[in-house]
């Protein structure tokens, strides 16, 4: 647990995100994972209003075995809700903390944090999206054609 936590603190999230996705693949604790993914989806869509912070608080209230950074988690979630609305291209970093209770059961706490996308990253993502939509799906041809022309 401590290793995971320190990895998270150090920003060494490599592998953790894949772990999370793999666990939902295996359908273990599917409900909890599913809710967390919903939460992340909400943050990305920016259509959560104040619901993210409220739901995180609710989840924490429902689960009394809480790890020390509870207030931190809560505060971060709230800041996500505030800043995501003002930021078109927001990146949420996802990690998880595995907690072992006295009974030996592992419980997971999800940490949805937001990192402002570097201003120079937005056009790169826009290029990818234009390629994906135009190239694969034949949609949004204006953007795609301009990209193609610029590359010649």
């Amino acid at each position: 647990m401590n290793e995971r936590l320190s990895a998270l603190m150090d920003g060494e999230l490599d592998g953790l995100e894949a772990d999370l996705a793999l666990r939902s693949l295996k359908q273990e604790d599917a409900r909890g994972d599913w809710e967390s993914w919903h939460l992340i989806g909400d943050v990305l869509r920016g259509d959560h209003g104040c619901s993210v912070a409220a739901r995180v608080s609710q989840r924490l209230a429902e689960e009394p075995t809480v790890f020390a950074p509870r207030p931190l988690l809560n505060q971060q979630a709230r800041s996500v809700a505030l800043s995501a609305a003002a930021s078109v291209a927001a990146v949420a970093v996802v990690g998880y903390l595995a907690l072992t209770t006295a009974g030996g059961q592992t419980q997971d706490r999800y940490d949805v944090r937001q990192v402002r996308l570097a201003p120079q990253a937005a056009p790169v993502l826009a290029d990818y999206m234009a390629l994906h939509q135009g190239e694969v799906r034949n949609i949004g041809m204006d953007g795609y054609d301009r990209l193609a022309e610029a590359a010649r």
Partner: protein
Amino acid sequence: MRLPVLLLAFWSSAVLAEPASEGSEWLLRMASASREVSFVGTFMYQRGDFNETTRIAHRSESGQSIDHLETLSGRQREIVRVGQDVTWYMPESKTVRTERQSYRRFFPDLFGPERARTVSQFYEISRAGTDRVAGYDCVNYVLTPKDNFRYRQSICAETKTWLPLRVATVNERQDRLETFAFSQLQLLPKIDPNDLRVRNPDTSGWTQESAAQAADPAFGNWFFRELPAGFAMVSESQRVMPGRPQPVIHKVLSDGMVWVSVFIEPLSNTPAMGRGLSQQGGANAYSRPIGNHHVTVVGLVPVQTLVLIGGALTQRNAAP
């Protein structure tokens, strides 16, 4: 702008030999409809406040399909598809591009009949009432994913011919993420040959591009360890992008119904992108560095699908 391209028209052949369900029969009829009927019409694509209008003429004759599509909004662009061979005409940039054995599908052609059984493995299909689209009665079919790796699809198929008249992608919150729908349609016994012709067939002096060329060995250096159920790679290519010293590798994955793009480029190519999830134009994106490369996975699928695909990508013989 395209460099060597390799098209991998393979799908997982591990389709279980389960008996055809009612749902897969329905899908088969929808998938086959565009091979059996002829029509002219106009359809709209809508995603948030973005929309695009396209005119389509489609002829099915003795098992051979011909399509002529033309954008009516934004830049002019025409596409002619004869069977699996696709030609794009882009008059503003004076470019004509051809691709043989294309994996691409254009509305209302959702997926090949051979994929109907596979698609029904990953979606529960149910009827959900009737509706009317572009003056034709249709039956609504809802494709509910059996797992968490794709969104719900809603297809309204014309009552007599099963031609899909409207296809919508709906997320877990029941938001309609994107919609293709006919606004005007005529199902016809015969199509005027002029409707299938390109407006200006004289492309002399235009840039000629071919999408199918020899594979670059560099493609082999990237592979996926494990993919979300049903997803397989359908194409990989390499392209030059503006302001990038090195070309970008573009892999396309699909479960038959939805599409995911994976972009790989050297870290030196772009500004530091970091890692994480983002949303752009209604689609989700997941970015992460792998060794000396930056990887971004894009698609109209739930974020966990992107994270899993991004996490499964591996560089062969990468320095430890």
